[in-house]
């Protein structure tokens, strides 16, 4: 159902006079999940022959302007490694031909990895609901009476919320790793570290918002809306290029979203092929660190100011 271009393998165009022929070569690299070849004729005339790397003919079709057949698409799952040939033969009418071949995203692996990050986000948010429960049952006053500073309390809650979310999502991350397959140990450790920071950051955000608004109803709705927007306007479910193509505004928001940073880093660390246009993993890592710092350290200040004085609803 889903077909998302990952990267262009070959692109080219040529003008062929009548009965002239030209062959394009498409290099299918080893371990390619899927490949798509698009061929078009401006006049809707001529023939196309597609050959395997060993020279065997795979498919042959004919353009036909009388039935609006100006282009063809050939999709191949797990294509043979090597040089594929696409031969174009003009008919009695000269025509311009173009070819674009690209690899396709393995959407199953892409989605599985995004699912881990989405679940981690939802699990880390739960700490905010605990805050309301504690306020309702009077546990808050007990916590305030403990011999720990307010700062230690909020940092501890933040780390605790992030850690328990991580434990909760651990089995899912394990399943994701199994589905995704081979990993680069160094990259994976770095992305795991980023996921830890992400979970702590989300917990910190949840605590900060909870103590700021002090109303469980408002918190519930705000978290619902935030969840709807932050997850859907991220690359957890779809690649950045597709979000950008759908709507530049969506793409802009997705580019500055902690869920995007976490999802991209996790995919990068788990070695999924370059389907995320992640040229430099340092940028999302810095984004995650900034997110974590904002909601942990700024959260501490807000927490200290708002924690006392009651007013919980």
């Amino acid at each position, binding site marked *: 159902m889903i077909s998302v271009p990952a990267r262009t393998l070959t692109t080219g165009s040529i003008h062929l006079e009548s009965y002239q022929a030209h062959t394009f070569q498409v290099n299918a690299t080893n371990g390619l999940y899927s490949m798509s070849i698009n061929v078009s004729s401006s006049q809707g005339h001529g023939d196309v022959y597609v050959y395997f790397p060993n020279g065997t003919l795979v498919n042959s079709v004919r353009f036909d302007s009388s039935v609006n057949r100006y282009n063809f698409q050939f999709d191949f799952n797990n294509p043979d490694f090597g040089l594929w040939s696409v031969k174009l033969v003009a008919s009695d009418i000269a025509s311009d031909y173009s070819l674009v071949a690209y690899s396709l995203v393995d959407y199953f692996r892409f989605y599985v990895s995004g699912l881990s990050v989405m679940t981690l986000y939802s699990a880390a948010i739960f700490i905010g609901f605990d805050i309301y429960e504690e306020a309702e049952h009077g546990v808050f006053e007990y916590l305030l009476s403990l011999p720990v500073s307010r700062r230690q309390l909020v940092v501890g809650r933040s780390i605790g919320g992030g850690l328990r979310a991580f434990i909760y999502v651990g089995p899912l991350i394990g399943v994701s790793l199994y589905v995704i397959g081979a990993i680069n140990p160094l990259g994976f450790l770095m992305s795991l570290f980023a996921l830890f920071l992400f979970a702590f950051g989300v917990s910190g955000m949840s605590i900060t918002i909870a103590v700021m608004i002090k109303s469980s*109803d408002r918190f519930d*709705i705000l978290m*619902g*809306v935030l969840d709807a927007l932050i997850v859907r306007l991220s690359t957890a479910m779809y690649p950045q290029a597709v979000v950008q193509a759908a*709507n530049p505004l969506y793409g802009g928001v997705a580019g500055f979203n902690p869920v995007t940073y976490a999802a991209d880093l996790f995919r990068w660390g788990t070695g999924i092929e370059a389907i995320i246009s992640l040229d430099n993993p340092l940028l999302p890592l810095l984004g995650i660190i900034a997110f974590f710092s904002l909601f942990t350290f700024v959260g501490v200040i807000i927490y200290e100011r708002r924690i006392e004085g009651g007013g919980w609803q």
Partner: protein
Amino acid sequence: MKAVLYVVEHDFRNFFRYKWWLVGLVSMNLADLFIMAIVYNNMLSTAVREQIKNYFNFFAPGLTVTGLFASAFMIGREINMERRREVHHYMLSLPMTRMELAIGRVLSGGLRGMVYMSPLLLTCFAFLGFPTAWQFLIILVVLFFLAIGIAGLSIAIAVSTSSLEKFITARGLVYYTLFFCSSVFYPLSLIQSLGQEGKFPMILVTLAEVNPLSNGADLIRSFLLGNPSFSLNMILNVLVFSTIFTLSAAFAYIKIIQQ
């Protein structure tokens, strides 16, 4: 009949107490439509694009059914809470028959689903075009039966589970089975072709075919998009589902809350 109306009124008052929750649900549904469906529109394979043309249009009826399901299912959560807090003793003491009480609960669950779903259905009409008067009537009747079937299913689960955790777990299982094994998110023909290729268990293909959510969504699509074509089985499947779960919910409710 008057007693049934009192029960419906009671449940409607409760429904609007969850206004914040409903706002969250609406925003999530709209985000699904105006963000997720638009982005997915750019990701469809050529074969699927030829079949459904536009994912936004395809998904809008599915989303209507999703909203209907979520809101009609809420009655179960309330009944589960009443059972845990033993409010049902008060309900049983009211001057009405057990059957009136049970029917009132199922009916209100269904009507609440219809109320919540109507803005989603209107959004669907606004983007996909309006059906004829007869088609509109059929859509409303079928969706109402679907809603009371879902409310019945939810009540049957609520009275059979002793804790909120068990209810939420059961709800999750039902939700994921019914939604992902339906044509809400992807065309039924795709599930059928995967089944024929041996990539999807045939039992799940059959479940997707008789699934009332598939039939509800496809009924709206058949009238608004013309694909899939309308079939009487769509109505029949929903009616069978609705009858089974309305009756089983009513009897389970009467039996279990009396214990």
